[in-house]
């Protein structure tokens, strides 16, 4: 017994000593002088998306002997953001990470991500003018702050309407194209434990889309001032709330993601991210036909938010590592990879040339579910990127929750949210 304890305690000491070395290496990707540069890449992709990222990393690694990419799943986007903040403080940031565009201003402020301009303009490893312009403009814009690139677009999605084709056909219904039609369809199919329409738990994207279709503004593009408590905002919110109160719509609730009840056939339609397609595919029970359609319009007005993530490089890494990370970044956003990524994940291709390839077009023909997302480029919009944008999102979600639960009126809740958001952004 005592010998065991003695050995174990020795083990404890040695182990901690060993960890001391390895944890440093583990976090920063420090590499031996002669070994390959190890690049840690943090992301928030799970399931089929994570599989795709692993595949890209493997492909890249076998093509680059001197670089090893190590993708690390950090859970949800919120988790990822928290982990990056913690790691930034502890000085063990990864080399690169996925990041939502509304947290990047904070990274810039705290100076821990690298400006990409030097890499882009580098004659050897940079991007040519044509290449750069091949990145779809709206995404390119969302990656620049004061004309400086701090990120490149990577996983960009838009909202699409998922529908249970089998159910609609049984009821002799068409896929709704307007919100009025959607309400009608939802009313008709809501019976026998099925709810017509579904919203994700974080449905502020839908609120923003409807608000925009109604001609309102969520946040002033120039000043970043929140304006969603307007009359239009209240109407948009009331519209969603009424559907839920009437019982023809529900939120994902404890199912976390709409893909779960939709997959079981408990919900006939729902609006979600185009990147949810592979998840829905996985959750779908046998015998249910389904597909996607563009977001319904209001008075002929189409609008949907672009969401999703860019990739950034952290400046705590050594130069060689940053360079290697840049190589992988280029690879991830190359036309070939982005089109494959799109086909595997439901995210949008971020290069014009990728959209135009015959292979991709054929894919869309064969997999119509993936089509709706790409059809909405013109209707897509980004909301203003401001420091604190993430906090504002949480405030809005919180107040919308109060409204939905009937604890506050629509007007109260939105006004409160707007006031709090303003205070947050000051």
């Amino acid at each position, binding site marked *: 017994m005592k010998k065991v304890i003695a050995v174990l305690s020795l083990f404890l000491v040695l182990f901690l000593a060993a960890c001391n070395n390895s*944890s440093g290496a583990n976090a920063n990707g420090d590499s031996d002088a002669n070994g390959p540069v190890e690049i840690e890449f943090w992301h928030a992709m799970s399931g089929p998306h994570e599989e795709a990222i692993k595949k890209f990393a493997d492909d890249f690694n076998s093509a680059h002997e001197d670089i090893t990419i190590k993708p690390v799943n950090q859970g949800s986007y919120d988790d990822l953001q928290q982990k990056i903040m913690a790691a930034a403080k502890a000085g063990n940031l990864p080399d690169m990470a996925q990041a939502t565009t509304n947290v990047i201003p904070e990274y810039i402020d705290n100076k821990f991500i690298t400006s990409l301009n030097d890499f882009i303009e580098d004659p050897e490893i940079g991007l040519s003018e044509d290449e750069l312009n091949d990145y779809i403009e709206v995404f390119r814009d969302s990656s620049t702050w004061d004309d400086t690139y701090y990120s490149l677009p990577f996983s960009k999605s838009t909202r699409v309407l998922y529908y249970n084709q089998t159910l609609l056909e049984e009821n002799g219904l068409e896929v709704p194209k307007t919100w009025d039609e959607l309400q009608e369809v939802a009313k008709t199919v809501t019976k026998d434990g099925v709810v017509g329409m579904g919203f994700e738990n974080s449905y502020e994207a839908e609120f923003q889309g409807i608000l925009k279709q109604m001609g309102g503004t969520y946040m002033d593009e120039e000043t970043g001032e929140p304006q969603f408590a307007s009359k239009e905002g209240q109407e948009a919110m009331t519209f969603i709330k009424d559907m839920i109160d009437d019982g023809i719509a529900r939120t994902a609730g404890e*199912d976390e993601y709409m893909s779960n009840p939709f997959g*079981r056939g408990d919900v006939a339609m729902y609006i979600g991210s185009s990147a949810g397609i592979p998840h829905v595919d996985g959750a779908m029970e046998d015998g249910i036909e389904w597909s996607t359609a563009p977001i319904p319009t209001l008075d002929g007005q189409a609008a949907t938010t672009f969401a999703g993530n860019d990739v950034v490089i952290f400046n705590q890494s050594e130069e060689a590592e940053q360079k290697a990370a840049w190589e992988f970044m280029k690879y991830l956003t190359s036309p070939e990879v982005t089109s494959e990524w799109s086909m595997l994940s439901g995210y949008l291709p971020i290069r014009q040339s990728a959209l135009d390839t015959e292979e991709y077009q054929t894919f869309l023909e064969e997999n119509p579910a993936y089509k709706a997302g790409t059809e909405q480029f013109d209707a897509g919009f980004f909301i203003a990127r401001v420091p604190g944008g993430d906090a504002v999102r949480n405030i809005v979600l919180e107040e919308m929750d109060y409204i939905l639960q009937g604890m506050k009126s629509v007007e109260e809740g939105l006004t409160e949210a707007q006031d709090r958001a303003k205070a947050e952004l000051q």
Partner: protein
Amino acid sequence: MRKEALSKGTIYVLLSLGAILMLLPFVWMISTSLKAPNEVMAMPPVWIPSEWQFENYSSASEAAPFGTYFFNSIIVTVLTTIGELLTTILAAYAFSRINFHGKGVVFAVLLGTMMVPGEMLLIPNFVTVSNLGWIDSYEGLVIPWIASIFSIFLLRQYFFSVPQELSYAAKVDGCSDFKFLWYVMVPLAKPALITIALLKIIGSWNAFLWPLIVTNSQELRTLPVGLSAFTTEAGIKYELLMAASTMVILPMLLLFFVMQKYVISGVARSGLKG
């Protein structure tokens, strides 16, 4: 003899009903973990799966690296437990057998800190661990937890019950202080040490908030943290989620069944002493 208020039979019925309610979640968890997807959501509920799907466990392990989580939980639990035992033994010996200046003050200060809720220490400790560069490392998971005032207090009481003459005898027999501690006190305090170790193992295995905030990478997650992240990763597949929960819960249940005497006496003692 007077008639009792409740007959033995009634007592058994009441206790059994309660016991069923206590056990039900575990039974339901294991039952769900072995079901095929179509039976998971069946209404009325299916209690015994028509076909036992043991592969749910391997599927869960594929969906998230539960093997790694498991390994981390074991490493962290073993290291914190050994660490705490070592620091506790040494400190309890000093407090019970060595006379030194400032002993009373040091002991009083330590006892005083027991009143402070651990939640209050969370933020400064997080900052300290970050400053030490221990975020996302075994050090960060282990080192803050390898000393416990409560354990020192418990063991010190136990050490006091060892007669002073025994230490004299040992010295005459050729023991240094340290050898006496190691060869005599520690074996004698085995019941107390086992209790301390068990409470630590349970606490360490189930710890959540601290591992949640100090780990970044999947490689360093412990089981509870991995489990809580599992829902976001795989959507909700209840059969897999329950399989994963079973993997987290089962080791402690087994340990408890084997060592329950020590666990319960330890809890009772911790309770009575306050």
